[in-house]
C-alpha cells in the first residue's frame, strides 16, 4: 500500500494529490477525500487567523501509525495525509486525508477512521486569534474522543 505523510506550511492541491495516488493503480475503484478548513468564526466570535503548532518528529510518527492502523483495519490501496502548520486564515485548508480502495466502503471508512484518530492522537494544537487581537488555544472536544471510541479502543 502506498502511504505518504506530509506536515507542511504550504497549501495542497487536492486534484493533484488524487491524480498522483491513482495514476499507476487501476485496481482503485473508490477514492474518499476529507478536507478540513479554517472557519471564519468560533461561535459568535469572528476570527482573524489561526496558528497551528505541532511536535516535530512525533507528529510524523503518529500519522504513520494512524495510516498503518487504517490499512490494518480496512482494505486500502493508498492513504495520503497532509497537515498544514503555521499561520492560516479563515477559508484556508488545514488537513487533507485521501483513502483509496477497490470499493467505496473501505475508502469511506479508512478516511473517516484516519480523521477521527488524527483528531485525538496527532500532536497538533490550534490557537485562534480574534479580529480584536485576542488569542485562545482551542480546547479539545469530548465529541472527538467519542468519535474515535466508536472504532474500538485498540488503536
Amino acid at each position: 500500500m502506498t502511504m505518504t505523510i506530509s506536515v507542511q506550511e504550504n497549501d495542497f492541491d487536492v486534484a493533484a494529490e488524487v491524480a498522483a495516488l491513482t495514476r499507476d493503480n487501476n485496481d482503485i475503484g473508490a477514492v474518499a477525500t476529507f478536507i478540513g478548513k479554517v472557519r471564519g468564526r468560533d461561535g459568535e466570535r469572528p476570527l482573524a487567523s489561526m496558528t497551528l503548532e505541532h511536535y516535530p518528529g512525533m507528529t510524523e510518527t503518529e500519522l504513520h501509525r494512524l495510516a498503518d492502523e487504517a490499512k490494518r483495519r480496512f482494505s486500502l490501496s493508498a492513504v495520503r495525509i497532509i497537515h498544514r502548520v503555521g499561520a492560516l486564515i479563515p477559508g484556508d485548508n488545514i488537513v487533507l486525508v485521501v483513502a483509496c480502495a477497490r470499493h467505496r466502503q473501505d475508502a469511506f471508512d479508512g478516511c473517516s477512521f484516519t480523521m477521527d484518530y488524527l483528531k485525538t492522537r496527532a500532536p497538533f494544537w490550534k490557537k485562534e486569534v480574534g479580529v480584536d487581537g485576542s488569542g485562545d488555544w482551542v480546547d479539545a472536544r469530548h465529541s472527538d474522543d467519542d468519535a474515535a471510541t466508536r472504532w474500538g479502543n485498540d488503536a
Partner: protein
Amino acid sequence: MTAMVHQETVSHAVTIRYFAWVREHIGHSEEHVVLPAAVGTIADLITWLSNRGSNYAEAFKHPPAIRAALDRVHVKHDAVIGEAREIGFFPPVTGG
C-alpha cells in the same frame, strides 16, 4: 537462569519539550535537565517540575489536563521514565 536486578539509582539527563499553552506558561519550549533518582514516573516529574517556580506551577496546576510523551510516544502519567531521552508535555491535541 538467575540474574541480579540492577537498581538504577544514577540520575540521568533528559530533554523536556513543552507545547502550546504549557510552553507559554513555562516560558520556553525546551530544556535539558538532570533528573534526580527519586523521579521515576511522569507523575513524579510533574510534581518535581511544579516546585521549580510559579511558571511551572501554573502550567501543571491541573495535571489531568496535561498529556505526556516519552521519546515521542503517548504515555499516561504512571509511565516509568526509565532510559527515555526526551519527554514532551502538552495539552490534549486539537489538530485536524
